[in-house]
């Protein structure tokens, strides 16, 4: 798979896929998207890199510990649930804040976004951990 054409195309594509996956992540709840779909897309972008450039080359640049991503995602998602208790509400109760930020304009800041980011990290971490683990296996 490591031809010049695939390398060049994937170098161009991977940042776009990652940006699209992040936009999918934040589009969730109101439009199609959310943590799971965004995470799968991010994982597919990184696995494209693994396939095209090879595990060893990617690891020589930076060795990602995907299990840490998985764990921090799970932690973030569950702590979002506990966060609602601090304010005297039930577990996972969501709330939002209407804010007008410079450049972005009026947007809704949802507490469930944190939960979605947690799901995003869990999906990325678990898929790539399995992918890398089976890839390393001789």
């Amino acid at each position, binding site marked *: 798979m490591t031809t010049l054409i695939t390398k060049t195309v994937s170098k161009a594509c991977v940042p776009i896929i990652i940006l699209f996956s992040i936009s999918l992540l934040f589009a969730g709840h109101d439009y199609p998207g959310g943590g799971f779909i965004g995470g799968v897309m991010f994982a597919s972008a990184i696995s494209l890199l693994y396939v095209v450039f090879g595990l060893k080359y990617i690891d020589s640049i930076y060795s990602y510990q995907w299990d840490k991503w998985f*764990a921090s995602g799970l*932690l973030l998602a569950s702590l979002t649930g506990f966060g609602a*208790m601090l304010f005297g509400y039930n*577990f996972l109760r969501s709330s939002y804040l209407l804010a007008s930020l410079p450049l972005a304009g009026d947007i809704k800041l949802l507490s469930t976004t944190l939960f979605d980011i947690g799901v995003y990290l869990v999906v990325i971490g678990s898929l790539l951990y399995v992918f890398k683990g089976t890839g390393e296996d001789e």
Partner: protein
Amino acid sequence: MDSMQHVPIILVALPMVFAAITVLFRSKSGLQKALNIGVFAGLFVMSFSLLLDVWNNGIIVYEVGEWGKYGILLVADLLGAGMVVLSSLISLMAMIYATDYMDRKALDATFFPLFNLMAAGLNGIFLTGDIFNMFVFFEVLVLSSCGLIVLTGRGDHTKMADKLEAIFKYLILNMVSIILMLVAIASLYATVGTLNMADIAVKIAYLAETGTLPWHIHVIAMMLIVVFGYKAALFPLHFWLADVHPSAPAPIHAMLSGMVIKVGVYGILRVHYLIFHESMFMLQPVLILLSLVTITVGATSAVGQYDLKRLLAYSSVSQIGYVLLGVGMGTAYALTAAMVYLVNHAIAKSMLFLATGETLYHAGTKDIRKMGGLVQSAPFLSIIFLIGAMSIAGLPPTGGFFAKLVLFDAGLGAEYYIPIGIALVFAIFTLFYLFRTWLSIFWGEVKEHDKEDAFKTRNPTIAIKISLALLACVVIFLGIYPEPLIVLSSTIAEQLLDPQPYIAAVLERSVR
């Protein structure tokens, strides 16, 4: 009171948080052990306070996310809270035991996160009020227990190839059963349009009253019997247990045989007694028949085994038959008996498995014929094993005596003479195979003289002794003073037969 309100969700969510934390701090072994024992001790205390709270103030309903009338609920009634206390007790003891028993490599890799997820799955199953969430927690439980079975401990003489074969069976068969559960839940949802168990119960009762109960409700009830019967290792579905459970390391074996197969019994008690009243008239005879076959097959298979772990696994199959016999008879007294039996078997069996793991390590083999005279080198283990065997066989002064007494009394009271007769005959089988095993392991001549020096270095450590001794105390306590357990069980049985308070607590609550 305000902080007590969140206890049901904390029991489910706290192990999940710690599953994540233990992945992040994998390398620090000492910290991990202390942290996890602390967490499980905390969960046990919280579950106990939840049970007291439910006992004093009635059923607690917790709305996750405060979504209003259609949200996801956790319902802690006496049955659910009681099962959570039982599972927290056993998982605390298994955790204390495992910190010294499991290999360092297993502890550093995946043991702690998966054990936490398993506890979260168990607590979730017992506390959820939503049948689809029950399905989700079944998945959590199955996947985490798969990962735990392949880990190795010090008394573990199972080859990795055998473990992987066992996992393959467990995973594939579980997926089949869980897809069956999904189909059943989907058909139920298509019929009544809700997934909340109390709401389903009300709607099905209404359909039955107006005489428009669709026939496929009975089919759904039978499909769910298959699913839960598979979990509980009911007769035609028991074949996987004797391969899978003995492959697991001792603490996981104790969890699987102590708690995870009880999940099937809990499922029948919760779902069928709440929702499928109308189908029980045809399911009860089937349950009684199958549980009798389970008792027979389990006990006769156990008599022929020389592999200690397999023998005890077949014994679990046989004992779960007694619990389901009580469930099948279905009178208030029989359900009380089933609950008492369930609790006693869970505690005694998990203690026996923990003791077995240590005995196998001490003896260096898993073949009963090669062991003998261990009472000299391991007096502590022999006492613990004896107490466990006495409780399973039903001898006083252990809890198992009252479990069998109440069960047989309930059966005779409800005029099930032939089933009780069969159960009694195979109770004698249980006595025979457990005491034959105990005698051949701990009494008689020391068989392998060349290994005697090795025995001295293979003694149980303090943590293992503590967990075994505490469980033994519980077993003896249940035998000497069974009154609280029997009163609790009979109240649970009344609530199961009259689910109106449960339905009222769930449906007639104030919504934001």
